[in-house]
């Protein structure tokens, strides 16, 4: 019983930390800029921003739990967005066309993920290398398809997907919430979720336990790819166009979110709730910076700083735990 309590305490520390940060930012901003920060509009504005990179961050989380990393997510997002957009435009922008376009995008995401998974799981090339190459390849294919310029001429109604609201809640937030629920289910209630954690904790032991590491790896990167595609679809809708270099700055951001959300860089550990909170915290920080008109470079600088500080803090906490 004792142990269970301490364990609950341990889990909550990370999540508590994130909640405290979120509350602090809201408080400080509420005092400094109540009108700008606490307005419904501002929260709606945030709501149309974070789902894009938030959904990518879940892909990164899965890859990191498996003991790898997925640096190709942005490439996948854009490639699947491009394919989806082309299909929609080619089919005339009707509702079925949009649905088929979305489907195509998801399939492309899954294929790219399968490619990553194959090289990582079957050929056992380190994930970092594979996905770095993958980023280059998918971006390259995107460029070949578009020849550079953005694909436009998408049906106007498609922009509603991200620019509309449901009961005052931006549609992307609704989609994001669905993704969160599905991720929770995937991690908690499926065989795959359990096996993923096993493989990430100790991939040798998981092989010796009869877990099909190749299959788990394939599912991981394919899911990651599909999440990339969902994010890609959101971007296509948000920007009403598709291009091979949208969101190129999201890679670092997703990595930062995953680590901040308590995902262990060596694999095996990661919580959907932690990552969700980290996404929200980052969006709050970003929005606060914008309202305070902080120089964008400081933001880049601070992202790096947060990443390092989180890692150092984790290290210190863990060391204290060991010596105790």
């Amino acid at each position: 019983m004792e142990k269970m309590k301490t364990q609950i305490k341990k889990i909550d520390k990370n999540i508590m930390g994130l909640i405290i940060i979120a509350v602090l930012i809201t408080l400080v901003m509420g005092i400094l800029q109540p009108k700008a920060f606490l307005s419904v509009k501002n929260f709606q504005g945030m709501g149309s921003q974070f789902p894009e990179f938030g959904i990518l961050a879940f892909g990164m989380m899965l890859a990191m739990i498996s003991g790898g990393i997925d640096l190709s997510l942005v490439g996948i997002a854009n490639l699947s967005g491009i394919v989806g957009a082309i299909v929609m435009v080619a089919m005339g922008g009707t509702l079925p066309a949009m649905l088929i376009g979305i489907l195509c995008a998801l399939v492309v995401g899954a294929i790219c993920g399968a490619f990553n998974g194959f090289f990582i799981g079957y050929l056992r090339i380190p994930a970092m290398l594979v996905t770095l190459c993958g980023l280059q390849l998918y971006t390259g294919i995107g460029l070949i398809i578009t020849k550079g310029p953005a694909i436009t001429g998408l049906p106007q109604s498609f922009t509603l997907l991200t620019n509309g609201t449901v009961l005052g809640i931006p549609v992307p937030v609704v989609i994001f919430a669905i993704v969160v629920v599905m991720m929770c289910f995937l991690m908690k209630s499926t065989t795959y979720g359990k096996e993923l954690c096993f493989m990430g904790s100790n991939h040798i032991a998981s092989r010796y336990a009869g877990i099909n590491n190749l299959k788990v790896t394939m599912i991981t990167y394919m899911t990651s790819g599909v999440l990339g595609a969902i994010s890609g679809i959101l971007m296509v809708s948000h920007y009403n166009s598709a291009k091979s270099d949208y969101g190129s700055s999201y890679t670092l951001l997703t990595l930062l979110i995953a680590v901040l959300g308590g995902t262990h860089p060596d694999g095996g550990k990661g919580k959907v709730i932690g990552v969700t909170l980290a996404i929200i915290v980052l969006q709050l920080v970003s929005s606060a910076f914008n309202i305070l008109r902080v120089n964008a470079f400081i933001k880049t600088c601070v992202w790096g700083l947060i990443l390092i500080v989180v890692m150092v803090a984790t290290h210190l906490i863990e060391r204290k735990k060991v010596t105790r």
Partner: protein
Amino acid sequence: GCGTVESSQGTSSDSNTSSNSSAPSTDGGDSKGEEKDYKIAVVPKLTSIAWFQRMEVGVKEYAKETGVDAFYTGPSEGDGALQAQVIEDLIAQDVDAICVVPFSTESLEPVLKKARDAGIVVIAHEASGMENIDYDIEAFDNDEYGRHFMEKLGEITGGEGEYILEVGALTSQSHNQWVDASRALQEEKFPNMKVYGDKIETADDQSTSYNKVKEVLTANPSIAAIQGSAMADVAGAALAVEELGLAGKVKIAGTSLVSVSGKYVENGTIDMISFWDPALAGKAMIELALKVLNEEDVTTGLNLGIEGYDNLTLTDKVLTGQAWIDVTKDNVNDPAYDF
């Protein structure tokens, strides 16, 4: 206005109209007395390059001199998605006007539509084809600007020889417009000149420009002139030309900044660079936004009281000025152009 239309002559150095101190002159700005406290945001493509840092200088100056709450904010990287997010935040903050230089025009249409739906005035720059804007303001007519390079190159090469055209990206609308106009003029006015190969794409990167120009000069040593479009194009070209021992033999002109290509202009490897002052463009955007907010008339002949933007031509939603600056060996050391 002080009326420095430095178009084709481009030699008058006008050191008296030092551009970084030129606030909107009073005759253009008298309408500002009665306005309420407007909040106007200026959003560049990205903040990490010299060009847009110069724009920031202009915005800050404007805010300081007029007391209007005009501010500069933007993404640190060239990424259409990031720029859109900045604008989302601005919409949430209830700004009165957004002045934007779109990184990728397509990706901004939906979010600018949102801004306009929220009653925000949207002024764009370098984005003449956009739909969801109030007005777009251009420093000059792109065709005219492109042609003036060929005038210069034709003149100094004596209208003979092959030349190459560089663009930052094959997808860049303005770059292509410049070189196309330039080529059209050459065919008409300098029939003995001939373009060599395709447009060269440099990805706005100096070393790419360097490497590609070098490759072309190797393949065809009879090149007589080079016209660049992106900021780094002529600098890279000049470096290649110098290294291959062809300085003076190959004439170079194109868009660039003194901070990028100044020394090649000074030593004569580059014959002329042209640019428009981003600081002034920033000021012009804000000034125009104010006029729209105050529901003043916007018609051809509009005078924003800013050098080069004092007699604008309106076609559709696009206002065009005559704000380009030519820099040659003679005026390269003018402190007014030191950016």
